């Protein structure tokens, strides 16, 4: 039972961002997704999490179809994510950022929290304890009552991962978790992520930091021009000539880029006229 993509496609107007990707992700492993800029890595994550709609094909988790669900339903089906640009609830404290994740499970009893103070206090205490535990794992306990927006950048990255873990998700999607982190913080992140590996959990990491990907991941898929180019272990990926070509490019690519740029200009021309 796994997370399965079946001939997944994503089309923006004329542009094909994801072009028939079929693959699956097994639990208990950390999967890396790499590829040059614009290869469709983030689109893949965003479609899985329901932030983008799926043009055609399907995404299933343990046999359950996800791509037709709304974003919050997908989240409640056991998929949690972080964002490329950190998206925390800035004016809420670090621990509140985590506590709010109990909403889907506990909103039905919210009225009891309003009318019966002892119940509310017990609930709050229980939530706080659980979240504190997660914060401690990320060494964030000292920041529990600080507004998330006021945290240092590296802590914010950690807090976002912590938030994704509150609901104990089956699938954890990490969109460039190391972006903007310094060397020391990246090492810390690697340690935490490795520790998060568990037999039930499917972890998918989109990342540009090759060192991180190669040390962290058990399996890597390489995306190129919206297609799945290669799949294998880190050492297989490093050995593959296809992958090297995709990253370094060939002589033909220069022409491709020129053509693409011309295309883009033509499109912009049309768009500008329409907008005015």
């Amino acid at each position: 039972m796994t997370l399965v993509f079946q001939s997944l496609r994503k089309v923006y107007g004329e542009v094909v961002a994801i072009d028939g990707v079929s693959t699956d992700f097994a639990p208990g492993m950390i999967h890396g997704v790499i590829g040059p800029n614009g290869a469709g890595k983030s689109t893949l994550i965003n479609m899985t999490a329901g932030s983008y709609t799926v043009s055609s094909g399907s995404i299933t988790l343990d046999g359950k179809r996800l791509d037709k669900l709304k974003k919050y339903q997908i989240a409640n089906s056991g998929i949690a994510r972080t964002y490329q640009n950190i998206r925390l609830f800035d004016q809420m404290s670090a621990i509140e950022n985590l506590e709010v994740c109990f909403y889907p499970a506990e909103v039905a009893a919210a009225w009891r929290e309003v009318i019966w103070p002892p119940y509310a206090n017990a609930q709050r205490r229980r939530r706080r304890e659980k979240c504190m535990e997660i914060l401690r794992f990320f060494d964030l306990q000292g920041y529990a009552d600080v507004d998330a927006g006021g945290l240092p950048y590296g802590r914010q990255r950690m807090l976002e991962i912590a938030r994704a873990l509150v609901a104990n998700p089956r699938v954890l999607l990490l969109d460039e978790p190391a972006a903007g982190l310094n060397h020391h913080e990246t090492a810390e992140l690697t340690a935490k992520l490795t520790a998060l590996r568990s037999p039930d959990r499917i972890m998918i990491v989109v990342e540009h930091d090759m060192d991180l990907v190669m040390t962290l991941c058990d399996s890597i898929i390489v995306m190129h021009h919206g297609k799945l180019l290669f799949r294998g272990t880190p050492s297989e990926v490093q050995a593959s000539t296809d992958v090297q070509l995709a990253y370094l490019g060939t002589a033909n690519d220069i022409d491709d880029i020129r053509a693409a740029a011309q295309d883009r200009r033509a499109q912009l021309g049309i768009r500008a006229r329409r907008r005015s």
Partner: protein
Amino acid sequence: MLGNLIQQTVNALTIGSIYALIALGYTMVYGVLRMINFAHGEMFMLGAYVAFLALSLLVGDVGMSGALALTVAFLVAIFLVGLIGVGIERVAYKPLRSSTRLAPMLSSLGVSLSLVTGVQILAGPQPVAFPSFFPVVRYQVMGGTITLMQIGILIAAFVLMFGLHVLVNRSRIGIIVRAVSESRPTAQLLGINVNGAISMVFFVGPLLGAAGGILYSSYYGIMSPSMGAVIGLKAFTAAILGGIGSIPGAMLGAFILAFIEVWGTALLPIVTNGVLGTEYRDVLAFAILILVLLVRPAGILGEAVSEESIVYKREF
């Protein structure tokens, strides 16, 4: 019947062109700042009051006569209101540009409140008769009556809109404004004078709105400090109807709204057998607004803005 048809069509065109002048200001401001300027309706009101003041000064103190005074008053008023618009942006909105999206809108509510009461204090809260800018001439066209004023309003509105079209599409400043509305951060990175573009929008928008206010007051022969609110709301409806951020959309939306309103008002008592009378005209406009937003939130000519294409950090 045919006469009635023609007359109602001309009525709708007249009102539509006034709506269009105001809707353009909303749409342009939204385009560059992604902000609803609640004080824009007040530019419409200010236009009428400033023109009235200018006119009485020109005729009374300077002794200028008739048509010349009217033209000068019109031009002076719209220019002054344009400058007021730029000033308001500098004082009330510019400091809030990096704030939450709610902040400038709340600020514009404050501006709106201040302007309405300011004019109430200076000129009195009661409606004032407004001079007609055109001599009363009626034409009979196939049984319908069309006035010279309606023709004048249509011509004035179209000249202004054509001017805007040229400004936006053929001038350097127009390109800058378009670049800023496409993406403010990118424009900034490219060294484009973003403040200049925003000032430009806050000059042209109020200028057109003021022109709309003068024409409107002249058409109905009356002005009041509170007249901006409902008209502003309708013009905003028109802007959304056409697709907010789109200049041709604002014009199209304005005419569609005016036609629905004029025809709806004419038909409502007939269709509902007198149960719903003409006083439900404004309800009709808002009902359309809600309907459009539900069926096609991007408007007729607007780009489909989904979560995917624009993800705001704080969609308030």
